[in-house]
């Protein structure tokens, strides 16, 4: 018998994805399990002068869509609402927590170039959340967490807080980001990029950017029970922290990531020993992956828990990354399969303290899955998912 939920537990009742492996949760999942990688030369905008110039692009939303990030989010939300069977449910207590780093940036780029003024709501950052809330008629809380590459993870944590505090019955939570010259040139000039993303591999040289969106429906347990919703997972714990050490380089000791993980586990009332799978941030930069190996081994014990990164498959999707990894965690709980880390061939000795899943998917009963994210300015966030 599962334990009764504490009052106002946060339950996941729907999922939606737009990814470089395809739109829809099934296509995303099948691509991950098959170990496919969507990394290829950029086609959506002029990239001849960019070096490196590979990325993982979403192919089924037109490149000239004036608001790709908003369109990704809207499509993912549509899938998630239908999955949760929420299409006919009132929107008075429905909120939106949607992280992004670049949402609205295309319109911003055009305006900077003195092209015609975009519609007023298309300001950077909160444009995708506003588009979602207006289109769906949401009257609950609407906010855009802006925590760089951990934005999607923070958004889901924010949604958990709203639901548990009784501030919303349902929250569309997740992240969205799209590729543009602004961001590719930026990571290139930081010398943080490579032509292939090879998380935890001895030959890894940097990250590859990606784009996409994921929305998870975070629903209050009583609300879900009353409408007899299908319960996919429990969002059992959330935690976040600041490195408080350096703006762009992760804390070498992994102190911030460790604090976020321990806070999330404490929030879930679980010990590290209860965790069966960790979705790592795993960007493929030499620095991040080494730091993360230290942090994960410290929290979970060397080699004890299977770890993967999906950034070899879909690149680093920035504000969407944590949300796509949340979908991965929920699916892993349901299916008892951990997808391999695409493009990881030879584990770096400094990362060998981790049990990295690579080469082939691994069957494993997963009772608790953890996702961890970190970002510029020293932000960290972690989520704990269990069976409902």
């Amino acid at each position, binding site marked *: 018998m599962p334990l009764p939920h504490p009052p106002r537990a946060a339950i996941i009742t729907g999922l939606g994805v737009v990814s470089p492996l395809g739109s829809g949760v099934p296509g995303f999942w099948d691509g991950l399990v098959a170990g496919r990688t969507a990394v290829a030369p950029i086609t959506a905008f002029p990239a001849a*002068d960019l070096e490196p110039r590979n990325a993982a692009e979403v192919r089924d939303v037109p490149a000239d869509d004036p608001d790709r990030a908003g369109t990704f989010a809207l499509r993912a939300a549509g899938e998630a609402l239908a999955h949760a069977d929420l299409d006919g449910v009132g929107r*008075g207590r429905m*909120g*939106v927590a949607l992280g992004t*780093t670049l949402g609205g*940036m295309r319109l*911003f780029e055009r305006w*900077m*170039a003195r092209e015609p*003024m975009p519609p*007023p*709501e298309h*300001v*950077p*950052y*909160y444009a995708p959340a*506003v588009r979602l*809330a*207006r289109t769906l*008629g*949401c*009257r*609950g*809380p*609407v*906010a*855009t*967490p*802006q*925590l*760089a590459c951990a934005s999607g993870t*923070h958004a889901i944590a*924010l949604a958990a*807080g709203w639901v*548990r*505090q009784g*501030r919303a019955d349902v929250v569309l939570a997740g992240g969205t980001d799209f590729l543009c*010259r*602004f961001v590719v*040139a*930026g*990571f*290139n*000039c*930081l010398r943080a990029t490579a032509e292939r993303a090879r998380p935890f591999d001895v030959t890894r040289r940097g990250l590859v950017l990606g784009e996409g969106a994921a929305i998870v429906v975070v629903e209050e347990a009583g609300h879900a029970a009353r409408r007899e919703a299908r319960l996919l997972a429990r969002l059992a714990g959330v*935690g*976040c*922290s*600041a*490195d*408080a050490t350096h*703006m762009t380089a992760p804390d070498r000791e992994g*102190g911030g990531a460790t*604090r976020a993980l321990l*806070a999330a586990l404490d*929030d879930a009332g679980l010990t590290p020993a209860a965790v069966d799978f960790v979705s790592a941030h795993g960007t493929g930069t030499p620095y991040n992956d080494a730091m993360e190996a230290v942090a994960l081994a410290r929290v979970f014990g060397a080699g004890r828990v299977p770890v993967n990164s999906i950034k070899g498959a879909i690149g680093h999707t920035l504000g969407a990354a944590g949300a796509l990894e949340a979908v991965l965690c929920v699916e892993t709980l349901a299916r008892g399969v951990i997808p391999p880390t695409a493009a990881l061939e030879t584990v770096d000795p400094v990362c060998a303290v981790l049990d990295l899943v690579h080469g082939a998917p691994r069957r494993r009963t997963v009772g608790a899955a953890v996702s961890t994210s970190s*970002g510029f*300015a*020293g*932000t960290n966030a972690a989520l704990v998912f269990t069976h409902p």
Partner: protein
Amino acid sequence: MSRITITAGHALASVTHVPLGHLAEAVQARAARSERITALTLAAAGAALAAAGLVSDPAASPSPRIGVVLGTAFGCFLTNAAYQDRLADGGPPAASPRLFAATVSNAAAGELAIAYRLAGPGVTLTAGAASGLAALGHATDLLRAGQADALVAGGVDALGAPLTRWLAEGGLNCGRPPAEAVALLVLEEPTFARARAAPVLGTALGHASGFEPEAADGSAGDGLARAVSAALEEADVQPGDLALAVSAAPPALAGLESRALAAALGRARPRIVSPKDTYGETFGAAGPLALLTALAEAPGGAPVLVLDVCASGHVGALVAESAST
């Protein structure tokens, strides 16, 4: 109980040069080399933390139970514009790593965390001109959930040429002169504040955020009315007990705001004040700035209602009381 102690607050509005003289030398240096939004944040946070008695030795280890929750409408807009200008003019070789690293809206909160070793929860969020109350609300939720003992929380937005041009061209119709401000509070879990004999500026009693999907065409939904009612209910305050209420709507949304107040407050008619008539539209700083104004104006122990209303549709309400005198 859900009350959260406000131990200090500090605001800067209409400043030309960001005052840094009150900060420790290392923090001054950090502010001087940072983007303007970060300098504003460091200046206000340094004063608020000092007033709260929470500035620790820079050599001390990080405080994992103290953090930052910042609301901002435009965040790194100016940095993005500066970076984009160089990229558009000179192509990828002209892209600036220094600027790109600051093209994240959490840069200010990150610099603040480093400057004061605040290693606990760190969140930056945007909800248009309702970002400030959204940040204060989330900070109180984190404290109630036991995820931190104390948080620097509030809002900030910096202005500059590209942003003022954007606003002048109707980027966000706020109806009042845009102005720059930062307003930060120190919020603490009550037993933590009591145990360290912290000063008390007031108490946050309840809050709620909502959205008005049809705000753009001026027709009122019930997002704001619901938020006001929810904030009062959580605060356990009757509308008739409010000493004052802060109006925040852009002129185009004045009807929406007055209908929402009438629906949520019934016959109660608290005194209405409008700090935006004094300070202009300060976006992310507006709500926290209004809260500090209201706490200073209301009699000790009397509850106040602060609103945030943005043309984007984001709305918020917060109920607090000033310290008993």
